[in-house]
């Protein structure tokens, strides 16, 4: 009887190698990839025109294709909110709830396993690879709290951990698994070379925007100014795009940094009041917040004009658009860079 394993595929090297090690033992593997809304993918950067030369592939799909396995991409945006907003084990250096995230994903994989009659779960975890979620003493916590218990096998470091069911039952040979540990990538790179894998993803800052300080500052600002810790998918997508400037608690500007972002933000014209430059080339900006009074609107226009080609002009014409009230022209003198309060700029 062929045993079946579901592999958590992030798109990185570790999950690729873990799945390959298990495939080599005659196990049928299928992949599962969770979309939280915070995932860092080349495509997010593809919005920006100057980054369009980057590889735009989805790395999880690429990994699945290298392995010749099916990949199930699952939207967990709504369910994941509770992990981000109320992490039982707290945050890492930023708003990254890494331990709760791992527990949640393994739990979801276990639910999938039951529904699809698979035998065990594999992940690409390596002891000591990540400071929060991959410490040796926390590995049993993930297995226990996710409910997966001994159905959770980590092929890259299994020989340093207690035996799991697939090993006890002889479905997989423990001796053919690895005992990798630490932050060095050399053992993984050597194994990749052994398997003939090239061109695999090497994410520098992990695969989640929540580990990014600037992103976390913007998310915290969103919560602080809404008075509640909640978000919608559009909120967390927009935090990835543009220059975010909050001149007051009443409103925030999301200002495109280049043509690709201009195009992306233009898709939100029906949901937001917008300001764009008319007399000079410049950015499109979304206004997030309450209706602005005339002084606030003038300040918003002066800030946006500062990021246009007319930044040194005496006057710049902009167009304020509101889906319900129509649009009108506004002329302002661009705000000098020295008058943009650094506290307004969310980075």
């Amino acid at each position, binding site marked *: 009887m062929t045993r079946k394993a579901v592999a958590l595929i992030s798109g990185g090297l570790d999950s690729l190698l873990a799945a390959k090690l298990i495939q080599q033992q005659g196990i049928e593997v299928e992949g599962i990839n969770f979309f939280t809304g915070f995932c860092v*993918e080349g495509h997010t950067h593809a*919005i920006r025109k100057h980054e369009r030369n980057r590889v735009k592939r989805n790395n999880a799909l690429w990994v699945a294709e290298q392995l010749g*396995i099916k*990949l199930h991409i*699952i939207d967990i945006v709504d369910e994941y909110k509770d992990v981000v907003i109320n992490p039982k084990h707290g945050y890492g250096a930023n708003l990254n709830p890494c331990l709760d995230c791992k527990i949640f994903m393994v739990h979801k994989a276990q639910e999938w396993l039951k529904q699809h009659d698979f035998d065990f779960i594999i992940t690409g975890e390596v002891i000591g690879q990540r400071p929060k979620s991959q410490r040796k003493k926390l590995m049993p916590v993930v297995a226990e709290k996710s409910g997966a218990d001994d159905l959770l096998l980590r092929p890259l470091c299994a020989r340093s951990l207690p035996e799991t069911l697939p090993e006890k039952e002889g479905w997989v040979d423990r001796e053919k698994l690895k005992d990798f540990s630490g932050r060095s990538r050399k053992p993984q790179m050597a194994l990749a070379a052994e398997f003939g894998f090239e061109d695999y993803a090497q994410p520098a800052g992990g695969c989640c925007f929540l580990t990014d300080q600037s992103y976390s500052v913007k998310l915290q600002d969103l919560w602080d100014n809404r008075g509640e810790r909640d978000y919608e998918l559009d909120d967390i997508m927009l935090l990835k795009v543009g220059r975010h400037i909050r001149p007051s608690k009443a409103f925030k500007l999301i200002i495109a940094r280049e043509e690709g972002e201009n195009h*992306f933000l233009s*898709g*939100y014209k029906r949901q937001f009041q917008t300001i764009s430059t008319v007399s000079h080339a410049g950015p499109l900006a979304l206004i997030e917040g309450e209706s602005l009074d005339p002084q606030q609107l003038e300040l918003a226009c002066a800030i946006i004009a500062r990021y246009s080609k007319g930044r040194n002009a005496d006057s710049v014409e902009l167009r304020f658009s509101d889906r319900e009230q129509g649009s009108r022209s506004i002329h302002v003198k661009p705000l000098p860079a020295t008058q943009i309060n650094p506290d307004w700029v969310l980075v």
Partner: protein
Amino acid sequence: MSPVIELDARRLLCPMPVIRLQDCVEKQDKGVKVRITCTDPGTMSDIPAWCRINGHRVLATEQLEHEYIFLVQKDPDGN
């Protein structure tokens, strides 16, 4: 002949267009055709990759200025 199912995935960033397509195709009978319209240039690699992995066919692709359109057929020989 069954009609082509239309999916609008404009403004969605990857992998959401792929998820929309995946969730739609799963519910269809084999051989059914789905046309999906996207704006994320990443779909140019992702949707064909997803189809290859799962045995579905990309019958046609079209690239307009800011839109990427794919006509996909669910694996006619699959389950």
